[in-house]
């Protein structure tokens, strides 16, 4: 009996010790730094691009290595939020700016990189403002763009549409022509809810004055102007034209060939209102996983709406960027500068999956369709940031939910506006 008790003590302590002794994470003792990097590029070519940038940086700074973790877009936000409060936070993580960044900054988990990135920020000009809080820089964008309709020129031709619509009424007519030709007019990723919010957000951008939009973001409230209720009414009329695919409430936005991006990639739908990244996403979902050339895929901005107070060249959009966590080593900010160098940004532009922001790199975008998006971005005098990023996370996601419910036939334009007040 005694030996049995002894064995069980030894086994028990061995188990407990094994469980307690874990990974140390970064080892900085010997001068080597490992940067943990979480980004949302789970598909090529962007995934390989990030690996190449990391390798290029390590080539120049041999004592810095990277542990890269691509995380699917739908899960990365929560993963970052939970990771930041853990004992092993990521060093570099995806950052969309706006109200969400402000909430993260309040907690002190994001590093103030104003000093180490001052030169880069000066070069970026106004674009870097979205990643600032109280004048201090808390992240850098690497791809900023605007939302618009990505459309298939071949399907438009089939339906007898000669060119992109210039007004909302013309868009409705084109939708009808496509339906008559037996083609699904617009693909919508209703399951993920944020694509629905693009419609409401863009209509609000067309109907609301710049002051009303800026006031809404600053006060985190949509009660300040009637135009937001009007946006819901215009949206209702648009949804009533039934332009979307069957079962759009259950279609994901980017995952798999049955997603809305996949539908456009495979010619099952004629167009999709999506962000500047969509060319790349569509390219990853084609049968040969190559991007559709500009002879097949085109782009036009959301058409102007008659009687709207919005600035005519206002756009709705935002960007992707990265932040450093507060405990990240100085190599993190230095890496962000490297990522934003003209050389690396040009390489990014050549991929035609996003829009580089570094000055002078706009020409690196070779695909005419993507270049068109870049031109629209640069020509726009005001870009309204996606509302679920401009507002703090909770009201932003509540707004997405209310809009998604509206698409499902529940709720009203007033309820959409009221949803951000909790």
């Amino acid at each position: 009996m005694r030996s049995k008790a002894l064995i069980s003590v030894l086994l028990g302590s061995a188990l407990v010790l094994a469980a307690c002794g874990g990974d140390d994470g970064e080892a900085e003792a010997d001068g080597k730094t490992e940067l943990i990097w979480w980004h949302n590029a789970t598909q090529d070519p962007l995934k390989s691009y990030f690996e190449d940038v990391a390798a290029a940086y390590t080539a120049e700074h041999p004592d810095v290595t990277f542990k890269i973790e691509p995380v699917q877009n739908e899960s990365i936000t929560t993963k970052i939020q939970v990771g930041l409060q853990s004992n092993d936070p990521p060093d570099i993580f995806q950052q969309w700016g706006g109200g969400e960044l402000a909430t993260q900054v309040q907690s002190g988990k994001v590093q103030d990189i104003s000093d180490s990135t001052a030169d880069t920020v000066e070069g970026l000009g106004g674009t870097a403002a979205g990643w600032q809080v109280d004048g201090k820089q808390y992240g850098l964008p690497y791809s900023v763009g605007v939302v618009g309709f990505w459309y298939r020129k071949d399907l438009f031709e089939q339906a007898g549409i000669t060119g992109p619509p210039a007004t909302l009424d013309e868009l409705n007519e084109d939708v009808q022509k496509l339906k008559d030709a037996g083609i699904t007019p617009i693909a919508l990723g209703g399951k993920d809810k944020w694509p629905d919010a693009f419609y409401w957000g863009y209509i609000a951008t067309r109907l609301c004055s710049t002051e009303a939009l800026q006031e809404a973001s600053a006060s985190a409230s949509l009660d300040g102007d009637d135009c937001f209720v009007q946006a819901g009414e215009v949206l209702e009329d648009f949804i009533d034209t039934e332009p979307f695919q069957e079962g759009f409430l259950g279609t994901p936005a980017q995952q798999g060939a049955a997603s809305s991006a996949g539908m456009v990639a495979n010619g099952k739908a004629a167009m999709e209102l999506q962000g500047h990244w969509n060319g790349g996403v569509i390219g990853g979902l084609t049968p040969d996983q190559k991007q559709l050339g500009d002879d097949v895929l085109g782009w036009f901005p959301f058409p102007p709406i008659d009687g709207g107070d919005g600035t005519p060249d206002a756009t709705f959009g935002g960007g992707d960027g990265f932040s450093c966590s507060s405990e990240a080593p100085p190599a993190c900010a230095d890496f962000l500068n490297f990522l934003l160098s003209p050389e690396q940004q040009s390489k990014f532009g050549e991929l035609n999956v996003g829009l580089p922001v570094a000055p002078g790199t706009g020409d690196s975008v070779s695909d005419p369709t993507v270049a068109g998006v870049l031109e629209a971005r640069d020509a726009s005098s005001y870009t309204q940031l996606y509302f679920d990023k401009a507002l703090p996370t909770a009201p932003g996601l509540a707004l997405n939910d209310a809009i998604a419910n509206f698409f499902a036939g529940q709720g009203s334009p007033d309820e959409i506006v009221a949803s951000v007040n909790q």
Partner: protein
Amino acid sequence: MPAPADLATGRRRRPGRPVANRPRRLRKRVELTLFLGPAFVLYSALVLVPMGMAAYYGFFNWTGLGPLDDFVGFDNYRRAFSDPVFRGSVQNNAIIVALSMLIQLPLALALALLLNRRMRGRTLLRTVLFAPYVLSEVITAVTWVLLLQPSGPVDHAMETLGLGRFVQLWLADPDVVLYTMFVVITWKYIGFGIILFLAGLVAIPDELKEAAAIDGASSWQTTRHIVLPLLGPTVRIWAFLSIIGALQLFDLIWIMTLGGPAGASSTMVTYLIDHGFKRNEFGYGSAVAMILFTLSFVVALLYQRFVLRRDTEGALTRMAG
């Protein structure tokens, strides 16, 4: 008469003075501590402590970052109970529980009775029916999402069979999505019920069935009056596990519908993840988690008190002996 010798130690025991028992009791205690210790430590650390912390967080407004400084008392609980989406989620859970009892139970019983007979390919059939239970929830969900696409494999199969007019928007129609999810859940978990009932059926002594046959009972009468009542304890255990599982439904729903179009397929757990953690309202999410815990706990206690009490009294062994 010499005092009775102590069997373990061989020492003589003086009546009324259990001195020799003390080292034995101490050793027993040491053994118990050593064996239960690690399990108890792990259980406390991984189950009891997080429960306590969740109860604590439930009283705050907390974004997950920074200190807990926004105490709101029972506001989170009040907010949950007044939220129509949460009430809808509770209702969805209740519907799943009810449907499990009404549909899964007879189905599992029937299949178990069928698979209890000797027939060719019985092992293959049992494997086929049990296989879905072994698949992970994620694989099941991803596969079914692809199968249930509009004009996808399921729709094509139905049309080929001439059932075209019954085709629905399985995952996109708010009126249908919860029942679609129930079908997927049944497909996945029926194997568990079948295995459990098969085990229960095997434990029924053949003599009882033979005696009934001698008395002239038909096979249906035997099943109805002998087999099913003796299967009672197994059924009650299965129902208990099924109810608790239905209350905590998450994986399949989250991957297939994210809580459904406009919350039509949301359950308490998808609600707490969606409205709590995804929106960085960890305090609110914790409060909802505590509501779910209390509900499950009360159901478990009531069930054990009123339904399972029978099983400790009317055990088969007593009847046969």
